[in-house]
């Protein structure tokens, strides 16, 4: 056993150093060669509804950075691959980006299951992944920077809001999700959190559906039943991908209104609601760290850039109706912070960029100056709760005054208090 681990370590180190050496030699050979960055988002399959625009956001940022003279005087070149909502394919494509294309950093993944699939690859090859989506926490890899929200920056505040008088003093919760690691872990955290707030097990219902599920009749009828007991009930939805379209359609068709049973969603933004008639959904909620409807100069500028880019690139849907959303903002923050870190480190070498990333700040479209934590690889972000409007945008009904530090190791999961506050390799 000992020997095997040692062998593995040696081979990994050898692989890493050889890649590093090759990268370095390539850079030395041609100091003006473009810097490659990888884009690892599903452009087909069930997650394409959410992930395609993130690819375009990276391309927009690349154009913008190149327009300003690139990074370290070198142009950026995006290498786009399509892992097709297929988790093993994510790992394969990640390996390809790191070994064949030798990218300096990768921007990608949406679902936690895809991130878990690529994590060993990034750790083995010492790559750098910028992950732009809210997630369940319980992870802190030295090879990943998490620019989306941890549970205490999204899920917990949302549930607290529901329990407040303005949120309807909810005391009964239906936790609804797609069947994979993010919803299951989030709901585990929420369960523990609700217990501390005095919500009993009988007042929590948990239900999961497979990816791509499209028949929500039974589940919505069950929610109706669960909610009809005289205690104010809300649905907490961690449904991901294009299942949200049939889910919200069915919700509207069965006449379950927000004033009766509000639904707060953690993975539904402006983009996911595009194909849905939002008129029956007015008042349902979403918790994010950014909404398109926020009014501030940074956001106006961000929307203007996106609109121009979408028109110029003829991006389907967005050329007529440009939309921005939270993961797009997080992607944009991620790539800009990477650029700042590279400029500061004067190098694209992963180990030096990682050090330079700590404490980076950026004036985000959310209107706040977000900061990369000095230790935990997560952002300090503001939290917003928005209500769906008839036009598919969100009205902010609650917000934090300042940015919130992420707690990737949720205090509501046992044993997390003994976890180190700095990133450790998973294996």
């Amino acid at each position, binding site marked *: 056993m000992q020997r095997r681990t040692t062998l593995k370590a040696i081979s990994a180190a050898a692989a890493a150093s050889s890649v590093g050496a090759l990268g370095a030699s390539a850079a030395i050979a041609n100091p003006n060669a473009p810097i490659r960055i990888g884009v690892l988002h599903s452009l087909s399959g069930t997650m*394409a509804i959410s992930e395609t625009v993130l690819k375009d956001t990276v391309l927009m940022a690349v154009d913008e950075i190149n327009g300003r003279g690139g990074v370290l005087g070198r142009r950026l070149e995006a290498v786009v691959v399509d892992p097709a909502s297929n988790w093993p394919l994510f790992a394969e494509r990640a390996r390809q980006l790191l070994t064949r294309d030798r990218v300096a950093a990768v921007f990608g993944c949406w679902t936690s299951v895809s991130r878990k699939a690529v994590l060993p690859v990034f750790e083995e090859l010492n790559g750098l992944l910028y992950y732009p989506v809210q997630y369940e926490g319980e992870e802190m890899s030295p090879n990943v920077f998490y620019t989306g929200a941890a549970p205490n920056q999204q899920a917990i505040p949302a549930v607290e809001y529901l329990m407040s008088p303005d949120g309807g003093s909810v005391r009964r919760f239906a936790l609804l999700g797609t069947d994979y690691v993010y919803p299951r872990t989030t709901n585990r955290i929420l369960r523990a959190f609700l217990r501390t707030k005095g919500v009993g097990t009988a007042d929590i219902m948990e239900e*999961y559906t497979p990816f791509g599920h499209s028949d929500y009749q*039974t589940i919505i009828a069950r929610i109706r039943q669960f909610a009809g007991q005289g205690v104010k009930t809300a649905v907490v939805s961690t449904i991901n991908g294009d299942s949200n379209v*049939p889910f919200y359609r*069915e919700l509207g068709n069965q006449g379950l209104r927000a004033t009766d049973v509000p639904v707060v969603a953690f993975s539904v933004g402006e983009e996911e609601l595009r194909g849905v008639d939002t008129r029956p959904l*007015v008042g349902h909620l979403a918790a994010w760290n950014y909404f398109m409807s926020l009014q501030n100069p940074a956001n106006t500028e961000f929307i203007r850039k996106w609109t121009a880019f979408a028109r110029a690139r003829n991006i*389907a849907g967005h050329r007529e109706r440009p939309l921005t959303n939270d993961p797009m903002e997080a992607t944009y923050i991620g790539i800009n912070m990477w650029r700042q870190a590279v400029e500061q480190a004067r190098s694209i070498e992963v180990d030096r960029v990682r050090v330079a990333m700590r404490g980076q700040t950026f004036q985000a479209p959310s209107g706040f100056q977000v900061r990369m934590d000095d230790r935990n690889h997560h952002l300090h972000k503001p939290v917003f709760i928005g209500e769906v409007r008839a036009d598919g945008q969100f*009205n902010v009904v609650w917000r934090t005054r300042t940015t919130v530090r992420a707690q990737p190791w949720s205090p509501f999961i046992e044993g997390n208090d003994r976890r180190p506050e700095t990133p450790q390799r998973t294996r």
Partner: protein
Amino acid sequence: MSGPTTPFACRRHLGWCLLLLCALWSAAAHALSPEDAWMLAEGDTATRIEALNRLAVSDSPRAHELIRALAREAVQVQSQQVLIVDNGRWIDASTGAAVDGTGAVAVMLNNRLRNALELSLAVLDLFDPDPVRQQAAAQRLRESQLTRPDPVLAGQIERALSPPYGQRLAAPARQALEQAQAVVWLGSADAPQRVAAAQVLAELAQPLVRNRLAEQLERESDPAVQQALHAALASIDRTLALAEVVRQVFTGISLGSILLLVALGLAITYGLLGVINMAHGELIMIGAYATFMVHALFQQFLPGWFEWYLLAALPVAFMAAALVGALMEHGVIRWLYGRPLETLLATWGLSLILIQLVRSTFGAQNVAVVSPQWMSGGIEVMSGLTLPWNRIFIIAFAAAVVIGVALFISRTRMGLFVRGVTQNRPMAACMGVNTARVDTLAFAFGSGIAGLAGVAVSQIGNVAPDLGQQYIIDSFMVVVLGGVGQLAGTVYAAMGLGVVNKFIEGWAGAVLAKIAVLVLIILIIQKRPQGLFALKGRSA
């Protein structure tokens, strides 16, 4: 249905509101001050609700108009002025004068305010001349009373029911108010009144009512009332159980109708012609994309007729899929008759080509197909049981398609040829039937049916290039389970699978249901490889 929880203060005002409304029915109009309007439009939620309750009890029509406008989210503000938007024009909320509101911003609402607004509106609408509005208002008050009984509101409901106001209420509104009243009577000191309450509430089969009755039963000591409560509970339980069964059967049939639609085309191409068509799902996808195209054309060129685009989409989807099917048969499948393995591989290849073709044309992302108005919403058949219109229409559509196919196969000359060719090809050929032409036409017909299925699935799910992939397994499951070569078997299998799936889902969740159904099918196929309803014949 769960009712709202609003602060007690709001409820108390509500009671007064009713009292005043009843007492001052035709009082003189009072003005709405700009300050009051502003308080309702802006500020923190508690203050706004306070203003709302104050304005609702005022007798100012302007105030009521503002409340109604707020409820339909048609209120905007600009520089201390509250505006009501109506058809793109602005009027000042307090004076009613037309003003220019360019640059005004919409006021914000949250669910707490919406709830308070709904209650205020219910009070305003209770004596509306329109009986539908009356009924909705009465039901809203009943719901509020059921969630949290309030003695002041109860007193006012009693007053509203008694003459002279009671005469203004239409029967359904009256009934709802009586039920609201019964909630309070349930706790009265007078035993006969409690019995009467139990009898009235027995009519209202809602889980919430059941809870209230059960609570009362626990503390009840009078045997007569106990008996009445038991009877009411039993009646509600019966109705609820019936509603549950109806719901499960309905959702089962609804899923079954989808399975039937997607499998019916395959029942013809695979069942009758014996072609293992792995590209069947893609024919459904082509139907769905044809619907999308028609939808887009209507949106662009015939927006006035948009509601009816589905009718135009039916022939287009049928013809598009049939054409692709005919080309497939003519170009590839015809050369592979009698070689099932090669057919399987070739059609699988065709399916990949079709997916990629659509992906390159329309993009990899889902396209949005908006359902027409008449397909959205639902009908409440029993309390707590809403059947969505789109599901109802799809069930009816599936039935119509099955009947159409059955008539085509059994009654038309072409159908006769198809049956003849599939049963005995050489003999049919000897009788002068052009078997090659029959093959092409029958395959095109089956493909067209798949196209029709595409129209239906575009209304309930997502339309994406790989849409067919999620239906191909289901379709084969249904056809194999039902027995190859049998249309009736396909119908039974689809409905059976739908109902069983939904039954297990209601009990074990969607993920387990999917697994359980697959295991079940494996077991059945093990036991009866020829399917549930195999043709009895020499070949079987």
